[in-house]
């Protein structure tokens, strides 16, 4: 049974409790990997999280804020009650170095008045504070309307009453601290037994996001999302030569419960990670030059994020991020025309993907999570939009890409999960290696950098294998690859099959001023490219 089918069961339970299910999540398209291995949270427990929520006690205040904003002259308003909880346990070498449990709770009011945006937020939840921020949001919009050339307009979206809980098996906030600490300490011990390993850092972060959205159009949406991120790094130090090297675990963060941290098998993988840190320390330096590389999903996801994910954000293409995140090499009128890659290149944006960090029931302006094509057979066909952006390219509906990272942040265009579809041939990673005469296999996330229009990028990795005559021959060090987005995707000549598809992701995709941080995932198979390989070691 696919995990999207399991999500549907949760939905069915909620639906019977009188709440709707976002329409996008009913579908069961392919590539919703990875699948969970055990049954997910039961419909009853998901419904209990919604019906027992402490946010409900403040719903009346949120309703008042909406009313005050409307009376003050807002043509549209939305109010979000948002609670973020973050539990973190950190280990340094042989001991626990940090135990933290944080909560952030408050209310944010966003309004349109006289064709301009206004927003105000507070962590004080009483009538006085609510009235103050609702009026302030409208006052800001009215004042800014004098700086507006073309009034902001929103495309329509149906009013929705709904609730959604992201699928999970084990509530990470219910896992005892001792169990979390012991898992990390055991992994650290396993790595520290490898001679030459001098340091380990490990942590487990669990995040729970809960939000109740009310809009002036009559939508009411209540959602609870669980995300987890295991981290593990082993460092080898050679004092005599003055060298050191670190190796990170490649387990991605996921929209999931504690079961995902367990499945990451930190303890079992720790000795291998430690050995590879040591191998990196004594690996041969890479010869720079034009080379064939096979990028594992644990590396390629971030290259997708930077080169395709950000360049297909419509707000960037329209110049709205010009002062900070940048614009795009793609112009708004190039959908259906621009060739980004060869026939085998297909990218989907997907807010319904199981495990995807940006998967959701609805966005922060009541638009359902959905799946749509961005690039089909190499040609750009779609954009990431919001209710403000959709009309600017003549679309009647938003793609549901509007989010905020806190009660105190205004919702604005943020990236959905953007994924590269596997190839039809069903190749394995071994098939790609065997077909490569001279190249490098790159896995894991290293440093990453791309220009503000998403042409020129340079990425590192965690581990690098030399490939000669179809075989992995020896580890290499100091490898980075540089390319231009279109050259890179056009050079892709082999993709792994469905069985090789994996999700990678990040909790901290930065964008906007003041800067906000978004969680997003990218799925892909391993793939083969031609790039410019650099030696970043500064020696041979």
């Amino acid at each position: 049974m696919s995990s999207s089918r399991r999500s549907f069961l949760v939905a069915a339970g909620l639906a019977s409790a009188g709440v709707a299910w976002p329409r996008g999540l009913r579908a069961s398209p392919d590539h919703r990997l990875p699948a969970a291995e055990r049954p997910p949270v039961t419909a009853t427990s998901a419904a209990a999280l919604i019906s027992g929520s402490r946010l409900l006690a403040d719903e009346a205040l949120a309703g008042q804020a909406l009313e005050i904003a409307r009376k003050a002259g807002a043509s549209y308003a939305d109010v979000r009650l948002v609670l973020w909880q973050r539990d973190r346990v950190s280990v340094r070498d042989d001991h626990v170095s940090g135990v933290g449990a944080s909560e952030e709770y408050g209310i944010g009011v966003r309004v349109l008045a006289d064709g301009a945006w206004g927003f105000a937020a507070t962590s004080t939840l009483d009538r006085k504070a609510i009235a103050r921020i609702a009026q302030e949001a409208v006052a800001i919009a009215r004042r800014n309307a004098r700086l507006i050339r073309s009034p902001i307009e929103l495309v329509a979206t149906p009013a929705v009453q709904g609730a959604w809980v992201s699928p999970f098996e084990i509530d990470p906030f219910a896992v005892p601290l001792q169990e979390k600490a012991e898992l990390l300490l055991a992994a650290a011990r396993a790595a520290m037994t490898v001679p030459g390993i001098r340091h380990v850092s490990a942590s487990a972060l669990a995040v729970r996001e809960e939000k109740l959205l009310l809009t002036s159009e009559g939508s009411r949406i209540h959602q609870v999302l669980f995300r987890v991120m295991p981290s593990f790094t082993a460092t080898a130090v050679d004092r005599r030569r003055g060298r050191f090297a670190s190796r990170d675990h490649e387990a991605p963060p996921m929209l999931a419960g504690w079961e995902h941290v367990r499945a990451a098998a930190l303890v079992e993988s720790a000795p291998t990670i430690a050995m590879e840190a040591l191998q990196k320390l004594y690996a041969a330096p890479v010869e720079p030059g034009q080379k064939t590389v096979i990028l594992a999903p644990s590396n390629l996801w971030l290259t997708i994020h930077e080169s395709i994910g950000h360049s297909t954000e419509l707000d960037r293409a329209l110049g709205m991020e010009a002062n900070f995140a940048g614009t795009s090499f793609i112009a708004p009128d190039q959908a259906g025309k621009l060739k980004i890659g060869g026939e085998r290149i297909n990218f989907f944006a997907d807010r319904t993907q199981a495990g995807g960090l940006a998967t959701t029931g609805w966005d922060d302006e009541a638009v359902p999570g959905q799946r749509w094509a961005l690039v089909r057979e190499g040609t750009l066909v779609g954009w990431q939009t919001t209710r403000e952006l959709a009309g600017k390219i003549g679309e009647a509906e938003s793609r549901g890409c509007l989010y905020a990272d806190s009660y105190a942040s205004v919702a604005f265009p943020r990236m959905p999960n953007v994924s590269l579809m596997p190839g039809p041939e069903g190749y394995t990673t071994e098939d790609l290696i065997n077909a490569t005469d001279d190249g490098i296999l790159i896995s894991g996330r290293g440093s990453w950098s791309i220009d503000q229009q998403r042409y020129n990028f340079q990425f590192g990795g965690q581990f690098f294998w030399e490939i000669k005559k179809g075989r992995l021959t020896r580890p290499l060090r100091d490898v980075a690859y540089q390319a231009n987005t279109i050259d890179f995707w056009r050079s892709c000549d082999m993709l792994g099959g469905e069985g090789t598809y994996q999700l990678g992701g990040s909790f901290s995709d930065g964008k906007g001023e003041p800067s906000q941080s978004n969680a997003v995932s990218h799925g892909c198979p391993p793939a083969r490219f031609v790039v410019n390989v650099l030696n970043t070691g500064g020696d041979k």
Partner: protein
Amino acid sequence: MTLTAKEAKTITQAALKAATLKEIEVRVEASRAGYLRFANNQAQTSGATERIEISVTASEGGRSATATGTARDAKGLAALVGRAEALARLSPVDPEQMPPLGPQRYVEGAARDPKVAALGADARAELAGKLMRPANKARLQAAGMVEHVDRASALANSAGLFAFYADTEVEVSMTCRTGDGTGSGWAGAIAGRAEGVDVEAVAARAAEKAELSRDPEAIAPGSYVVILEAAAAAELLSFLFSGMNQRAADEGRSFFARPGGGVRVGEALFHKSVTLRSDPGDRAHPSAIFGEGGLPQAATTWIEGGVVKALPCGRYWAQRQGGAPRPSPGSWLLAGSQAPLADLIRGVDRGVLVTRFWYNRLVEPRTLLATGLTRDGTFLVEGGKISRSIKNLRYNESPATLLKNVLALGTPERVALGGRVVVVPPMVVAGFNFASQSDAV
């Protein structure tokens, strides 16, 4: 005021009173902030926020945990303390947990400007209007932001320590782009006091740079003399600042570790004109007066005449090594000269002028090698003059090499960089490595 010392004390006292474990530290961060973004020459998102965050660290016998929340009433604080204590009791022993410090003496902080604290929607709109004016006149696309914050932080503990610091900050920045999409110019300013930001100058500079950067020509990547404006220099130097850590150096995993053992404190690693200080009481650029656990921030010279003098060192590591702790500072002040940027340009026969860098990432912690790209105003300088606009370039370079190869330093100015007070000069540097070209404008 967002939070007075008296209000902060009320909060910390209530939390301390609710505690049952022996060692308690309470931190309060409160802020009132506002911003206005504009793009395509009109207002975009804009908002005002009130935030408070209270953290309680409870410890006993090395078992320690921190709980953080937003409720400031007695009931909420008691619940917060209860959460921290319950977690601490379950937590494995951290042998590095330090006992709370007793009362400390701090320098006088005078970093809060009531004029910045009073900024509101009208002032933001007025500033944004002024920023867009030259661009509107010149038919340039303008995008940018106005941001201000009034904030306070307090720290108190069960050993009787109480520390309080309040400051303000106002920041503006903008990017102008030419209608043909070939030119882009950026300028920005940040200050603690309202009069520290010259909005008209920022607006004029961004517009002028956009015009000047039209139709860039490609130059070959390679080694160049560069003139880095202060914002660009700071972006790259941030990797040096964050690499300055005594413990990592002692452990052999830092640029500041000496091959064969020991640390490079005392070595002349940089050009003799390089002097890096921190000073919480600096008159022009005051910064946080307390750091880790309430440790007082003190005037400190980290690099003097190119010689590394000291590295920041946490409380645990200082005790273990038998030295004094030096908290991670609230400011980085890199000395310069009186020379304006124009003089630096005049002194260069052939080089590249960089307005700012973008997407900078550390590549190799051993050498501090970083990568990133030029952006929004990159020019060729020939015979002491800007001769033409050039296409953007990716660099692969280390801030350590940058400070080794300094040819000239200009007048230090404050730049926006990661929450600290950072004041650096524009600089002329030899042998700067550009690795590849970018078509980005």
